[in-house]
Structures are given as C-alpha cells and as structure tokens.
C-alpha cells in the first residue's frame, strides 16, 4: 500500500475538515481529488506532502508515518513555486543542490541516494526546456514555468507526485498539452499521482480514480472509478462526457 489514512481527524481554524477519514491509495494509481473550494482537497494534499499533520489517526506513506516532507515525494503547486532569481537551469537543479547540501541523510534526501549530479540536461530536454535554460521565470509563459517545476520535481526521482491545481492558470490548449505530458511521465517513471483540481473535466482526464470531496467535514470518501482515463481519444468519447455530467450532478447534490 502506498498511502494509508486511517481514522484521521484534521481541523482548519477550529472547523473540522476531515473526521474519522479513512482512505487508501495503491502504488502506481492515478487519483484526482475533486471538490468545490473549501472542501479540503488542498488540505489533504498538504497532509500527504508532510507540510500539515493530522490531529488524530494515522497517515503512512510506503509504511512510514509522515512527520515531515518525505524525500521521495514530489510536490507541484499552482504558482510561485520557482525561485524568481534563478534561471530555468538553476531552478531545475535546485533539488539536487539541496540534497547535496545535506547529503543522503534519509531525512532531507533519500538515504539510498549516492549520486547527486543527476542528468539535469536530459530532464530539460524531456520537458522541452533546453533552449530556455538561461531564462528567468519572469521571462517564461505559464506553461513553461510549470514544465520547469515538473522537471525540477522529477529530476529527484520521486515515487509519489502530488499536484495542486497545477494547470488551472493556463490556457485550454496548454493545459491539455501538459495534462497529456503528465500522464506520459507518470507511466514512464512509474509514479503514483495525486492531483487536486476543481475542474470536473480535468479530474476525469487525469484520474483513473476520483475522490470526490464535499462540504466539510468529510467523513466517508466518495470514490468514482474511471477505468478509461488516459486511453487515447478518451477526451472525445461518450464515456468521458457521461462521467463529467454524472460528476456535475453529484457535486450539485452534495
């Protein structure tokens, strides 16, 4: 089991967001966390990232209780994740520099990590950034910035990728392009993916499984299977449209 949440409680500003919440994720699964704003989906992602901690209950990833950010977990946020004073190349290499700053101590960097000079140029190339490597984030488009963030995160060889509405400020074409790229990268790198989104369409494109959250407190997880996600042509299929409509109805009733 990759992720285990067992009887978890968490409140935000004295309002319970999760009460007695239990949820499990298998290795290699792709999940979309969907819900209206304020439902707790970002909170759940921050719990998984080790940036917030449950008040009660158990949260384990890969068998270990989470007490701080886990070195094998990658996190990509909607915006502002890049250092504005560093070039694309320096931003992509930031993780490697931080890891070599501490050494492979198992706390800040995975303990089995022996080599910190990763193949950064290969990652720049894979994300189509090779011609932008000396540019600063302010000189990039939103899509190029997220590509940089993805290259930075994946260059650390994570096994779990957490994304918080990573494409919501992008135009429709760029968004679709990066959604496809993310799906490709997830299968290339055998990643477990958890993506938070408020867009029904994005959840259906990205999530083989969809966790639907409602107004807090969330008690029982509502899980929708989406077996065809990631199949070619799924965007234009009837299954896709029907599931989107179905989810919209469920969200309106919740």
């Amino acid at each position, binding site marked *: 089991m990759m992720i285990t949440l067992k009887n978890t409680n968490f409140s935000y500003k004295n309002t319970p967001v999760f009460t007695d919440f239990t949820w499990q994720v298998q290795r290699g699964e792709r999940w979309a966390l969907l819900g209206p704003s304020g439902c707790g989906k970002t909170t759940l992602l921050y719990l998984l990232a080790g940036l917030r901690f449950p008040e009660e209950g158990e949260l384990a990833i890969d068998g270990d209780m989470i007490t701080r950010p886990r070195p094998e977990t990658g996190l990509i946020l909607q915006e502002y994740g890049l250092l504005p004073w560093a070039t694309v190349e320096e931003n992509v290499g930031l993780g490697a520099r931080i890891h070599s700053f501490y050494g492979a101590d198992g706390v800040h960097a995975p303990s089995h990590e022996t080599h910190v000079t990763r193949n950064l140029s290969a990652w720049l190339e894979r994300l189509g950034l090779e011609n932008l490597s000396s540019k600063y984030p302010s000189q990039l488009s939103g899509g190029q910035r997220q590509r940089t963030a993805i290259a*930075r995160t994946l260059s650390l060889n994570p096994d779990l990728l957490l994304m918080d509405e990573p494409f919501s400020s992008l135009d429709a074409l760029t968004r679709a392009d990066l959604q496809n790229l993310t799906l490709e990268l997830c299968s290339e790198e055998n990643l477990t993916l958890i993506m938070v989104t408020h867009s029904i369409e994005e959840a259906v494109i990205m999530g083989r499984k969809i966790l639907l959250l409602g107004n807090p407190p969330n008690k029982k997880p509502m899980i929708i299977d989406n077996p065809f996600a990631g199949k070619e042509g799924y965007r234009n299929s009837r299954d896709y449209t029907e599931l989107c409509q179905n989810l919209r109805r469920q969200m309106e009733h919740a």
Partner: protein
Amino acid sequence: MKKREVALAALGIFVFWQISATIIDKSILPTPMVVVPVFFEELFSGKMLGHALSSLWRALAGMLLAILLAAPAGLVLGQSKSLNRFFSPVIYLLYPIPKVVLVPIVLLFFGVGDFPKIVIIFMILFFQILVLVRDQAVALPTELIESVRSLGAGRRALFRFVYLPASLPAILTALRQSVGTAVAVLYITETFATRQGLGYYIFLNASTLLNYPAMYAGVLAMSLLGLGLYFSVDWLERRLCKWQLID
C-alpha cells in the same frame, strides 16, 4: 544609462563650473583648472590621502556593520509574525527620526575617534536595511517556501537557497537609497571632535587656513567618495540581481 552619457554629463558639469568661475572671478570660487591639479597634489603629497582614507573606512565600516546586523534581524522579523507584530510599532517610531539630530548625543556617549562616526552611519543604514529586508521576507509567497521544503529543504537550506538570495536586492536597494545621506551625515560628524577625515579637512581649509583650492579639492574628494560608494552598489546590483533588470 550608458557610460558615455554619464561621462558627457560629468564633462558638462565641469564646463559649467569653469565658465561660472571665470565670470564670477572670486577667490571663493576657483576654477576646476585650479582645483583639479590641487586635488591630485593634496591626494598624493599625502596631506589629504589620510583624511580620505579615514572617511572611506568610517563609511565602509558603518555600512558593513549595518548589513551584518540589520539583514539577519530583518529576516527574523520577516519570518516570525509575532516578533514582527511586537517590534513593528517600535520600528515605525524610530525609522523616520532624522538620525543626524542624534549626532551630538552619540558624540557625548562615544567621544572622539572613529567609533561615533561609524555608529551614526550604522544607525542611518540599519533601519533602512531592516525595513526593506523584513518586507522582502514577508512578501515571499508561502507557495515558494512550501515548494522548496518539498524538495527536502530544512531551515538551513531554506536560509541558504531562499531567504539569503531574496534579501540581497533589498540590502542593495537600501544601500543605494541611503548611502548619500550617510556620507552627508559623515561630513557633519567630521566637522567636530576630530582631526581626521575629509569633513575636518574641508572645514579646516575653509575656516582656518582659508585655502580655497584645497577646500574645493576636499569637496571634490567627498563627492567622489559618495559617488564611488553609489556606483559600487549599483555595480553589485547589476551583477548580483540580474533577474530584477529583466522586463
């Protein structure tokens, strides 16, 4: 601005000085043709060099001390909401006080020598750097901090890779804004209770020796000191903060 434009402007100012001094034709306004040779003579014969070095040392020591104390303090205040809430009103009150009025008090406390001058320059720069660095640290988006933490950064790496580079532009901006004031106040402190420094040199030549060309050479040296510091900060900013100059 291009180097050529700046050089042309400097030339223009000297030409203007030359023409007005020729027209006015008084001993209290010597022409640059007289002052510039005296400037080099005084500097290299050694009479002015010692004074110039004292002033330079005081300015640099004050700047360095201010950076070393204000930048970490600004970073700490910027990261801790409760400390910032506690100190904000104090800074709010102390920040706008013209530090030059404290010169007599500082002199009374620290007496003669370099130290009171360094303290004054330190006080002028300290609050400027503190406030700008603090605001810069507060303005860092939480998302950025969380992202870098997710790459494995703890407190030390955050400091090294985020807070330190983020405070650099703030320090340089603060220096650029207040280095002129610092040199001006340095001049005032050097006109009493000392026998060292360009302020003393100018004052001595103006009021006791009545050597106007030498006085002007001192004024020129003090101006060059201010300009030199300003240019250095500018140069550092262009080198270290390239990312801010991009549109």
